[in-house]
């Protein structure tokens, strides 16, 4: 589904150049939920922006479903960390969700219906007429997720989507992602710096090094379904995996200092 080979990205040039990604190889299978975890400032967001076509990498190649990424691919949606900046404050929640569907050749009634359906699937059936600023942070991020779902992308990228909400909301949203990928058949790449989260939601966890980022660990997560916040987190496999991912991330941090 997603093939990344020898990806390299350098910001700027000359002595002030910053090498964010260096020779990163990664492939994600159709329908997989991949967690990407790494220390902060390691180039995770750069990776997402390259996949989404928002920036052109200085080297390497990214293919989605066999097609090389040039401009922003139209079978892809991104959920950003900062919902308050990524939602459009001048539009109602329903309009926010429906807007990207203009790319889908749908008439207004169908766009509306699809937006309402997506809002229902994130538990916000009644919020359509409200404005983003009238909702809590967690609810705003649900709107952003609904906007991505309504678009029915084959690949959804999530850039630390739960980094700006409180712990309880974070768990709710993690479960929402698990529930969503059960309903919609799509590939998800979720970036996080939270080790537990990476294991809890992922089918697979990839650990990145400090910048310039490359893959230092790739672990399969084989936890019994359905997952839930209590039993999954006390499962011996979960405990073992989070320790292993933790060691890898720590190792990266230790090696850097």
């Amino acid at each position, binding site marked *: 589904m997603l093939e990344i080979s020898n990806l390299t990205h350098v910001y700027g040039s000359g002595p002030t150049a910053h090498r964010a990604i260096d020779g990163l190889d990664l492939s994600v299978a159709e329908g997989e939920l991949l967690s990407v975890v790494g220390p902060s400032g390691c180039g995770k967001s750069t990776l997402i*922006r390259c996949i*989404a*076509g*928002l920036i052109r990498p200085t080297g390497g190649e990214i293919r989605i479903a066999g097609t090389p990424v040039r*401009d*922003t*691919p*139209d079978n*892809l*949606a*991104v959920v*950003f960390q*900062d919902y308050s*900046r*990524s*939602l*459009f*404050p*001048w*539009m109602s929640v329903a309009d926010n969700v429906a*807007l*990207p569907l203009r*790319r889908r050749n749908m008439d207004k009634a169908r766009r509306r219906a699809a937006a309402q359906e997506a809002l229902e699937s994130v538990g916000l059936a009644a919020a359509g007429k409200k*404005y*983003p*600023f*009238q909702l809590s942070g967690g609810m705003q991020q649900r709107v952003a997720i609904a906007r991505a779902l309504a*678009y029915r992308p084959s690949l959804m*990228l999530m850039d630390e989507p739960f980094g700006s909400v409180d712990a309880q909301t974070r768990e709710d949203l993690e479960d929402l992602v698990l529930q969503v990928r059960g309903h919609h058949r799509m590939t998800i790449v979720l970036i996080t710096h939270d080790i537990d989260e990476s294991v809890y939601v992922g089918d697979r966890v990839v650990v990145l090094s400090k910048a310039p980022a490359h893959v230092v660990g790739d672990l399969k997560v084989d936890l019994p379904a359905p997952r839930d916040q209590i039993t999954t987190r006390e499962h011996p496999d979960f405990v073992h995996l989070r320790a292993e991912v933790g060691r890898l991330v720590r190792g990266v941090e230790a090696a850097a200092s």
Partner: protein
Amino acid sequence: MISARLLRGAAGVAGFLVAGELLIRFALPEGVEFPPPSTVLPEAGRLLVNGEFLQGVVTTMANWAAGLLLAIAVGVPAGVLLGAVPPVERALRPILEFLRPIPSVAIIPLAILLIASDSLMKITVTAYACLWPVLINTLYGMRDVDPIAKDSLRSFGFGPLAVLWRVSVPASAPFMAAGIRIASGVALILAVSAELFAGGTAGIGVFVIKAGSVLRLDLIVAATLWAGVLGLLVNLALVAVERRVFHWHRARTGEAV
């Protein structure tokens, strides 16, 4: 709450009028003539049924509106263009920085010589003066557009023009509105000033000149009073429109109601 504020405002105005009355009657040096409020207010009342004055108000406000609309028609698209294409902005910046501080009133004599049609001349100088606040505010608004908001739409595969129209323009609309409100005050100054310079058949400024030529100070002050009231009313109306249309902006920036 509102009525208490109104009451205090009314008390302030009443106090000012009484103080003015006393000052003019008892503290003005010998030989200085100035009409006290007790003369001006009844005269201002009579102006409401004075056909010549009302005709003047209509003429002035027509020039005001035409000048302001012209400035919006030029300033908003120009501001959007400059904001969207930074190289163009950098090229034009020195010219803007040079023209902007020139007091707009100073171009009136030039405009009188260049533009034969009287009302066209007045509209032109009004539009010229209004152009700056509209243009500069639009430009600031465009610069202030959140890059994450733009990326959000881009990531769904929208092109630069769609991002401009659907994100940058609505996001900077509150700034445009503020610029238009500021310009509406400037427009009144210029519309009246042009009449004071050039005379004409009708207008608040024309009325003032005529009153001056027969030494009717009370009429001058009364007409000036109405000019102030007009400016105040226009400003109040525009603030009300801004509050209604851009409620999302106020909520976001946390500006007090």
